[in-house]
């Protein structure tokens, strides 16, 4: 069998094992938090009798191990169960949220990844001259400002002063693609500004590293133009570390944007997860945890495969 296929199979098996371990950690962690779901639902207004009735109904009086096993049994059959707090089907609630999260992450990635790589190449081309310094200064500034602050600044100018885009990214099914894009315009800008610097700096560093090589000197001596050297000789050899960083940032765009979701009231996975952690709604927390872990594991797998495919020495082992 082809070594890449073997590697993918190994990684997938390991991924499943990791997911299982993650589910145990999440279950234990959520169970250890003070208060249970019945208390969190009834809040300050809980009476002992109402608490007892609610606990019995939700099956919270079973021992934790039994609850975990019954959850695991359901998941293995593809059933994520229902939320303890509002009785809604988890798979159904999550699918909308996940679609929203992916929508936002997709458009942020579509804009930020090519932009970051292009700016990285540009910075290499004009190394240590003003375009390089300006690109670095701007991107490092935006990554250093907390993301909610960038959000507030853009809302103030683009939404309240100029009224170009809405300040709240409300989504619903009846909206056309254009309306949806308009709704997420400011969150996409914020996310782009947040992830740009990391990818741009890595592109710059990786390519500069390759630029020291002898074959680049040869290309220069052949009389090739600088941008062409970077594009055809340096970039393919620097692709592995760049892809790694790109994948990390994509994972961030999927799982790490809860602050942005709160600032723009965007109905994504992050806010959904945080609400359910606060209510100790274990099945939902488990389901979100599994999805987030799967996204991380999946994207890292992609990064590994790309580095192998882009490297002939790894592609054709002796």
């Amino acid at each position: 069998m082809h070594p890449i296929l073997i590697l993918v199979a190994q990684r997938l098996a390991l991924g499943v094992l990791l997911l299982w371990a993650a589910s145990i950690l999440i279950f234990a962690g959520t169970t250890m938090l003070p208060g249970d779901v019945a208390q969190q639902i009834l809040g300050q207004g809980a009476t002992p009798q109402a608490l007892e009735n609610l606990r019995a109904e939700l099956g919270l009086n079973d021992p934790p191990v039994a609850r975990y096993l019954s959850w695991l049994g359901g998941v293995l059959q593809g059933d994520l169960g229902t939320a303890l707090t509002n009785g809604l089907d988890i798979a159904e609630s999550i699918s909308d949220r996940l679609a929203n999260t992916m929508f936002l992450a997709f458009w942020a990635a579509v804009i930020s990844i090519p932009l970051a790589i292009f700016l990285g190449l540009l910075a290499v081309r004009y190394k240590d001259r003003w375009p390089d310094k300006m690109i670095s200064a701007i991107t490092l500034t935006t990554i250093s400002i907390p993301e909610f602050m960038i959000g507030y600044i853009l809302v103030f100018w683009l939404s309240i002063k100029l009224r170009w885009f809405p300040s709240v990214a409300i989504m619903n099914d009846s909206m056309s693609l254009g309306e949806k894009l308009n709704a997420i315009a400011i969150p996409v800008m914020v996310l782009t500004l947040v992830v740009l610097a990391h990818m741009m700096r890595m592109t710059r560093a990786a390519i500069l590293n390759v630029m020291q090589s002898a074959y680049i000197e040869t290309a220069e001596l052949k009389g090739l133009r600088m941008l062409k050297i970077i594009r055809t000789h340096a970039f393919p050899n620097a692709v592995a570390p760049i892809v790694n960083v790109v994948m990390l940032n994509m994972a961030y765009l999927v799982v790490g944007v809860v602050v942005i979701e709160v600032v723009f009231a965007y109905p994504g996975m992050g806010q959904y997860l945080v609400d359910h952690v606060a209510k100790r709604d274990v099945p939902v927390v488990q389901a979100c945890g599994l999805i987030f872990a799967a996204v991380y594991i999946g994207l890292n797998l992609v990064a590994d495969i790309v580095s192998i495919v882009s490297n002939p020495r790894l592609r054709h082992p002796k």
Partner: protein
Amino acid sequence: MNTKLHDLTRAVTGGLMTRRDFVARAAALGVTAATANAMLATAARADQTTPVAGGTFRMGLSGGESTNTQDPALWASQVPLAIGRLWGESLVRETPEGGIEGLVAESWEGSNEAKTWRFKIREGITFSTGQPVTAQDVLRTMERHSNEESKSAALGIVSSISSMRTDGDDIFEVSLEIGNADLPILMADYHLMIQPDGGFGAETAAIGTGAYVMEDFEPGVRATATRREGYWGGDQTVTAHYDRVEVIVLNDATARTAALQSGQVDSINSVDPKIARLLDRAPNLTVRNVSGRGHYVFIAHIDTAPFDNVDLRLALKYAINREELVEKILQGYGSVGNDFPINAAYPLFDDTIPQRAFDLEKAKEHYEKSGHDGSPIILRVADGAFAGAVDAAALFQQTCLAAGIPLEIKREPNDGYWSEVWNVQPFCASYWGGRPVQDQMYSTAYYSGAEWNDTRWKNDAFDAKLIEARAELDDVKRKQIYSEMGRQLNAEGGVILPMFNDFVDGTSNEVQGYSDDPNSPLMNYYAFKHTWKA
């Protein structure tokens, strides 16, 4: 010049110009400031008197989570309440003036020393499905909230009922062990939405007698509802003027104000007091504050040392600077409290009870008299206890130290505060939303047998007065009893109540017909029913 001025007044009432700009522009046309203001007032009133049917009312609200449900029994935050008001109605509602108004019930009367109450169901009232409402539906609703398996947050309210029955299709009768003159107002509780067959088997169906029917419900995100035909209150020109109502959950304070400023919502709740004055300067919106019954407290268990000593409690009460807290924590959007949970927003409030002043000398005196050993007195706080609780505790600590009282602050996490700290630890920060009447407030938190007696106030004389007042139908005598109870708590109670907080709402100037209601924000969340867009 007249048409020009007319256009200008329209620009102001329509929210395109500020009042200040208008006065300046009018002055340029040779009109004095006083005349300009009078013109504006007339223009605003003209707009106020004729409701306009149609349009969409959009509320941006804090207090919603993706864990919310449409089952009224499990509502515990602001957004479910605001959404519930759209489709559901209880038997009666509280009026802004402290009275009661019928919703599902048309009339009611008490007899047998307020031990028996009969509610007459409104004639011709139907659920949104078209099915008529009967006394049986009401009975089943009350059963669902009070039966053995009840998990309802209203269980504490309905548990005083000893038996219920129907009499024909339109009479619902309640019997009590101990008479209660306030029983009708207890039926205004927002959990007690009348549902077909009490909602058994269809708890989350969101079917009730309200003016709107739910169109869309995404927990923690948004909900929309449309006006229905056949609402008992009349057509859109009479009440519930909007075609559609939209609730958008905006838990982040900045997102909420930005949405109002950019015109994405028409009304928001809980404006951050820190920015309320700044926000009010924006041209197209108005910030409104209403003094309510909600209050912020530091509560001590009076059965636990050192708080079992009345002098130590008095020392703490004298050592808190109430004015400073109202000024710095509420930014002036509130009023000082007097160590009992009642203020002028309650019916039968006695305003002659002397206000306790900030007095370090007296605090020192009582502290010395208490004979406390000088070990640290630990006050537990979290920001979730009330907005600014940690800062309020720090101010309290400073004034205590000045009186020689060794107050020490222990910060607790927000998470689990209500299950692990409040009503568990002997001294902590907390808040109360207030209740519509004094009896309910005292029965909930200051009666010996109450579950939420969070100061462990167990006093036989006090209990006896509470029960006496409950069955007393003569308001003069009742007020007298409540006054004595207030004075007793003020002198001996474990509650240190520095301030009552206002509700601060923000509303677009397009919204007309807005009025103040001390019960809850946004006109007790009935704004959708009584306002319209010009």
